[in-house]
């Protein structure tokens, strides 16, 4: 073969190799979901329902699901690095509270900027309330589409309460009620009756399920009504003393579960195995963690498991004068700001959030979805919790510094739960740390 022919041959091979990808678009989607593991239903839904239906309608787009099996904080870390270096999946699951920090840091672009007209004209926005839309919004711009919202409560083991002689229709109305019940349970032989999340390892689960749920019961939030961070207050001290009572003074909870790296799964296992009778968690714990077929499935769940509202410290002492408190967040999906194919990514994301696919999701895991045209499944748990708790609930501050402050909250609780520091000392460290993050002018002391 002459050199001339050879160069033509190589040229052709090169051209075909380059040309092939131009016809097909590859999309990657990542979520903290693993079939048979964490958030299994989400993974199954995307893999079995969304992707096949989407690829059938768009034969030129290939979609791959990356099942991320690590912790929430690790996914955040991965995405923060990926999105700032132009790498990462085209679409990713995302927790709403991180939107402000990512948006300010340039790791996310608003859908308006990234997609434009297709985004503004999407039919779904007519069926998504402003409240839900605001979960993935910051500063008037929308950064993603939410899957739904959640609420938090105390999940209880009815069988264990019964053993300890606590009435079937028990609803605590103060922290004292909760602690008294825990003491009775402990006497009845329940190893770690009460679990209120704390510590660094659990990440945002500490702040949301543990600290916030207690703090709201003292009538305070992490910030005051002007958006200033409260760095010293009786409320913070009361919460830290509650932790101290539970984990250090009376050992009513499993301290190891708050200190070890795999602690959250430990707390789930404790509940499953009947070692914990009261666990403060989100409705996700019912929908996904303890659902039939999952790792932490509670045997005979309908008869064994129930829930009560989280009481304020004293009746009427909660935030806005409430007797009971709850806090809500929400997750959804965002598009990588550096994706080569924003149009296709949006096409997939909006398809995933279409009425048809969202309704299909209900078969995998019933929940309250972001779209109002997706019927709420006939699940007493969901109907009751949403009716009772949504009117009581609170949202986290939509602030780019919230994530850093939340980490300081996790440290503060860990210092108390491990017995290292007294509540006063821990609060003093918290004050110093938060002041250096947000600046003294954005903090306030209530002592």
């Amino acid at each position, binding site marked *: 073969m002459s050199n001339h022919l050879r160069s033509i041959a190589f040229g052709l091979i090169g051209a075909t190799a380059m040309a092939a990808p131009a016809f097909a678009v590859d999309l990657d989607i990542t979520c903290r979901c693993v079939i048979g593991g964490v958030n299994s239903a989400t993974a199954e839904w995307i893999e079995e329902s969304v992707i096949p239906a989407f690829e059938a309608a768009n034969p030129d787009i290939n979609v791959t699901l990356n099942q991320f099996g690590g912790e929430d904080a690790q996914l955040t870390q991965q995405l923060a690095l990926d999105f*700032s270096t132009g790498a990462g999946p085209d679409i990713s699951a995302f927790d709403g509270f991180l939107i402000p920090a990512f948006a300010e840091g340039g790791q996310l672009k608003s859908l308006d900027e990234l997609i434009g007209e297709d985004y503004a004209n999407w039919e779904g926005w007519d069926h998504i309330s402003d409240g839900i839309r605001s979960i993935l919004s910051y500063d008037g711009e929308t950064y993603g589409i939410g899957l739904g919202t959640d609420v938090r409560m105390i999940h209880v083991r009815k069988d264990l309460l019964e053993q300890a002689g606590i009435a079937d229709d028990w609803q605590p109305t103060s922290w004292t009620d909760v602690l008294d019940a825990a003491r009775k349970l402990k006497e009845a032989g329940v190893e770690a009756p009460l679990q209120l999340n704390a510590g660094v390892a659990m990440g945002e689960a500490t702040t949301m399920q543990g600290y916030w749920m207690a703090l709201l019961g003292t009538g305070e939030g992490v910030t005051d009504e002007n958006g200033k961070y409260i760095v010293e207050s009786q409320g913070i001290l009361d919460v830290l003393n509650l932790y101290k009572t539970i984990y250090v003074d009376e050992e009513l909870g499993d301290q190891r579960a708050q200190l070890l790296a795999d602690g959250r799964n430990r707390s789930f296992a404790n509940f499953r195995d009947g070692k914990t009778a009261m666990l403060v968690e989100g409705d996700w714990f019912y929908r996904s963690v303890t659902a039939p077929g999952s790792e932490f499935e509670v045997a005979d769940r309908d008869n064994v498991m129930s829930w009560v509202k989280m009481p304020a410290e004293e009746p009427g002492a909660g935030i806005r004068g409430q007797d009971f408190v709850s806090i809500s967040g929400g997750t959804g999906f965002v598009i990588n700001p550096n994706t080569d194919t924003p149009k296709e990514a949006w096409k997939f994301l909006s398809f995933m959030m279409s009425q048809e696919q969202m309704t299909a999701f209900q078969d995998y895991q019933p929940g309250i979805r972001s779209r109002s045209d997706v019927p709420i499944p006939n699940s007493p748990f969901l109907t009751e919790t949403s009716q009772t708790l949504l009117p009581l609930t609170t949202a986290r501050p939509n602030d780019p510094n919230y994530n850093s402050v939340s*980490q300081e909250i996790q440290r503060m609780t860990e210092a108390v739960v491990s017995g290292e520091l007294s509540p006063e000392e821990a609060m003093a460290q918290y004050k110093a740390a938060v002041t250096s993050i947000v600046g003294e002018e954005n903090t306030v002391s209530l002592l």
Partner: protein
Amino acid sequence: MTTEPITSKPRRKVRNFSLLSNRAGAAFMLPAGLLVSVFVIVPFFWVIFVSFTNRTLIGRTALNPEFVGLGNYLALFDPATFFQRGQFGFSLILTTQFVLASALIGQALLGLLLAWLIQTVPPWVKRITETFVIAAWILPEVVIGFAWFAFLDRDQGTLNALLTGFGLPPGDFLLEQPFWVIVVFNTWRGAAFSMMLFNSAFSSIPPSYFQAADVAGASSWQKFRDIGLPLIRGHIVTDLILITMWTFNTFTPFLLTNGGPSYRTELVSIYNYRVAFQDFQFGKGAAVGVIMMLINLAFALVYLSLGRKKAPKS
């Protein structure tokens, strides 16, 4: 193990022989030089620059970092918080204790002991011992980390299974004694290097010295103290400096304890990682990095100057 002697002034005249012309030499150096500058020298100065800013990975200061001068350094050395758990000073002290206990005492002593003992045993025992000790050294860190985690777990761990099997009470090692766990771990992990180094040092001693000592009726301890030790003194110093540097920078304990519980095993390398990549404070993380570089530089200078001192004698 010793470094090349640095060419001193009188020798400079002998620079006649060369394989290539200066220009060709420079051309061959260029690709490597470019790689080194792109991946080592530029990042080095970049880290120093970033350490004077309040740059973060996410949030407002990600795109618009401000120059804060020595702010990050002053915050690290703030006497009010310096010794608090989870602060820079605490992890610096912790790292010093870790280096003393696991490298200088653990690895070097255990390595020396093993090296001495296997001089006298039958060759097959020597070979088996070497294989096991070296296996601990060459296995990938993640595998090792996982194996130790499984070994020490309170509920399903091998160690507790053994302890209860012998009728001893089980322990909650990772939570209650995390510091000693990582000390033992690092000793186990790194003793092989010291053993190999000392082993080759002992082998270089002429056997006739020991035979003469045997004739004179010396005990094993006397042979070790009066013949073995003095003749390998240079090797010991080299070994101590190398393992000090490695242990100072090691990150593997993170796989066992995540730096916790409550920062009780947060060595400076882990502290640096947390500040930069978990708290996303690049500016402060870079400042920690710069301080670590300076400490390493000090070690390296000691190491180099020792090499230089030895050179003229030989």
